[in-house]
């Protein structure tokens, strides 16, 4: 694994530790090789392939109501496209939708709000406005925070977001 990349196996292990059984996903180039392809080929999770990201907000909420843990793996463009579903279902109905968001074009090691990409810069302010707990994963320390964040989301019935700040490698 290149030093600049995040370790996909460590993230998958963190999701398993958090009790995630389902991954709902739209492909994202930041997480494609290191997460989505291994998840698609493996047996650790049931993968729900979505046509569009906002479907996944409701799929994850439905699974949560049914007593199953899920995560929604998307790109930040899909997050931006799904805001009304996130507002209405995850926030206003208090559902533990766990967003795993690849920040396409964010420079490694640069804070999302300082990125040269406008789309990346506005992600955290929008999450703040929605009142969604979030953190940016740049290395192993933040990967280790993932199970706790997911546990809190389900314990408190509210959404959470983990942002992938650099490419995830297999």
């Amino acid at each position, binding site marked *: 694994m290149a030093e600049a990349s995040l370790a996909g196996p460590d993230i998958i292990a963190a999701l398993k530790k958090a009790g995630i059984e389902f991954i709902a996903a739209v492909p994202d180039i930041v997480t494609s090789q290191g997460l989505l392809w291994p998840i698609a080929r493996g047996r650790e999770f049931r993968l729900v392939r979505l046509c569009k990201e906002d*479907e996944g907000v*409701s799929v994850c*909420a*439905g*699974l*949560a109501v*049914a007593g199953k843990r899920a995560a929604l793996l998307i790109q930040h463009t899909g997050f931006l496209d799904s805001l009304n579903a996130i507002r209405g279902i995850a926030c206003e109905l208090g559902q533990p939708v766990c967003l795993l968001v690849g920040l396409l074009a964010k420079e490694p090691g640069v804070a999302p709000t300082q990125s040269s990409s406008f789309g990346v810069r506005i992600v955290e302010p929008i999450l703040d406005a929605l009142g969604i707990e979030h953190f940016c994963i740049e290395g192993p320390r933040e990967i280790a925070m993932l199970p706790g964040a997911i546990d809190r989301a389900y314990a408190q019935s509210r959404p959470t977001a983990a942002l992938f700040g650099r490419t995830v490698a297999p």
Partner: protein
Amino acid sequence: MRRDDGIAAILRHRGNAAIIGVYNTGLDLRRLSPAPLNLYSSGAMGQGSSWGLGLALGMPERKVLVLDGDGSLLMNLGSLVTIANAAPRNLYHFVFENGCYEANGSHPIPAQGRIDFAAVARGAGIHYSFAFDELAHFADEVPRILALEGPVFAALKVVPGDPSPQDYAFVNAVERVREFKRAIEAERRAKPA
């Protein structure tokens, strides 16, 4: 077919199914059969079918019925492909076609009267896809539809029936979701798998 009559025909064969009602179908559902295992979807555009998919995947032991609207489905048409691909055996998707966005001024949907929802669902990969425009025929077929292995899709041409209370504050309240979840958990405790 009146929408509330069509919903009543489904409710006669509900059993222990969970039902998601979208906008006016949800309001009719509440009037006809208020129950903890009713979930309501409005405000998050077209998300009823995706709610249904998540519920169906999460509790395969129970039938999940989605009472959708045509305008709502058009806002989330890709969900038909997602549902066909995920192929939950317990998901039954009924679309009540009134041809308009009734909750927002009754403006016509695009291609009103020309779109064939059953054909769209079939083309998306849902094997069992039906269309009905006559209540007696639909009422006769409901038991057979619900005996099929899902996912199943049915489009119903409807007109409004009796008015239902437009109490969106009630159906949109977070307490409705909590009641729904508590009901599922209580049944699971009573009948462990």
